[in-house]
């Protein structure tokens, strides 16, 4: 899937909306954090952060690769390059039981087909479970990543069909049905603290847990963000603009190759 040029196309600004999203996501990771990485956009952003300001970011993939430092982007969660460049490889039960579940991972980095007003994520079905409009791949590691990481960062392209009032299926709990719901459900991590899109950044309101717009990328307007959001998007009083990509950020991102990319256009 290639990015739709919603805003900030390379021609106009020197970078694509997807590039801005990956760079903004990478910036939120701090050096030395342990980060449980989903494939796709999260993997790109996490590997970018590792090449920029967070060389000691600990990347963990659900295939069991711990502290992996691939010199190319993996195409799947279980690519050989992840095993070859890992400090150690453990079994899949171990990665979930010993590493994710106890809450020793700082950041869970997820994407999804739908995210809702309260940060819940759907990667299971669009429509009814038994008669879906679109059957999606399913849970994978996401439900427990969302439950157990200290905090969750969601990276998704900002589209009306994806940013919905209520997800069709709760694959991974964000803030459930409100601010106290995670505690009631026994979920110990803080849940989604940030949703980074190709338009801007959404964060949960501390009182309501509703995702509100806290930052816009360069050249994006509140109206554009609202037009792609399926609920009445609130704007934070201290809305900021994302700093544009630096030359280093852009060059580093563009220099990252995906494994087998000769074959994958």
């Amino acid at each position, binding site marked *: 899937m290639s990015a739709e040029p919603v805003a900030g196309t390379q021609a106009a600004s020197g970078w694509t909306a997807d590039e801005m999203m990956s760079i903004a996501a990478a910036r939120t990771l701090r050096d030395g954090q342990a980060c449980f990485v989903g494939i796709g956009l999260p993997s790109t952003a996490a590997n970018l952060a590792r090449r920029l300001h967070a060389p000691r970011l600990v990347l963990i993939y659900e295939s069991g690769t711990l502290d992996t430092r691939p010199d190319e982007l993996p195409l799947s969660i*279980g690519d050989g390059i992840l095993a070859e460049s890992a400090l150690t490889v453990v*079994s*899949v039960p171990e990665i979930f039981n010993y590493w*994710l579940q106890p809450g020793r991972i700082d950041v869970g980095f997820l994407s999804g087909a739908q995210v809702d007003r309260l940060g819940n994520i759907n990667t299971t079905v669009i429509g009814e479970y038994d008669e879906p409009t679109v*059957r999606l791949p*399913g849970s994978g590691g996401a439900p427990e990543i969302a439950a157990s990481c200290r905090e969750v960062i969601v990276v998704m392209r900002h589209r009306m069909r994806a940013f919905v009032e209520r997800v069709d299926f709760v694959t991974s709990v964000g803030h459930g049905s409100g601010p106290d719901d995670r505690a009631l459900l026994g979920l110990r991590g803080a849940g989604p603290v940030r949703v980074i899109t190709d338009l801007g950044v959404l964060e949960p309101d501390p009182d309501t847990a509703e995702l509100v717009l806290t930052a816009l990328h360069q050249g994006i307007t509140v109206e554009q963000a609202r037009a792609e959001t399926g609920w009445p998007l609130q704007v934070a009083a201290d809305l900021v603009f994302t700093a544009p990509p630096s030359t280093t950020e852009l060059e580093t991102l563009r220099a990252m190759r995906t494994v087998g990319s000769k074959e994958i256009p």
Partner: protein
Amino acid sequence: MPHAGTGDAAAPPIAGAGRAHYRSDVAKIVPLPQAVSELVHDGDTVALEGFTHLIPFAAGHEIIRQRRRDLTLVRMTPDLIYDQLIGAGCASRMVFSWGGNPGVGSLHRMRDALATGWPAPLEIEEHSHAGMANRYVAGASGLPFAVLRGYSGTDLPTHTDTISTVECPFTGERLAAVAAINPDVTIVHAQRADREGNVQLWGITGVQKEAVLAARRSLATVEEVVDELEPVPGAVVLPGWVLDAVSPAPGGAAPSYAHGYYDRDNAAYRAWDAISRDREAFTRWLRTIEEAA
């Protein structure tokens, strides 16, 4: 199909097959067609495990050739080989936690079976990875269930009756419980075996050990049979006495990869998208598999 010296077309039946948890005989090295014929039966619950790496494609194709029917296919990450088995009409049920073409997109044969029942209706039982992994752990451990922090607040428990809860007898805390999974047969692919049927695999080893130990019967296909298993960092070794059969199948994980042997054929994964989108293209592909005996 190439195979080691100790197995041939006239080999006697596999001694340990079906003896569930009491298998002290050493795995027999037998040709893959014989192993599938003796170990996989219509109606069985079958796990062909592998986490992107070491996917047992050759064994799956042999199941297609032998026209097994009504299988319950179990796997954390069903991908192309399950799409192929479903499209070939081998399966009536799938138990899984993430079904897709990794790095490419959807499984179109699976979607077609779910939506239209072609070529056969397909039921699903859906978990998260953590849940499936723990179901195998419980199965391998001889326990009826496993405990985890999971599923809470998600919509999965509504649709999946192998998810429940259990109360900690010490703290009173409620936790998720998942039912053990004990496949009738587990099939894995590994880099190599020795002549006693001990099997060694390395790289990303996924849930393969648990899937084999949870199974009533098990088969490992291997890239090669060697005299001695040189120790390899990070390797999992499955003793021959927990396997019913080992079948040489060089290249048997392609188009997935075998760490240290060959890379993933990403072009084949991409090409599958077009083949699987179209019933006729798929049927033509199926014929090539069936004829490649």
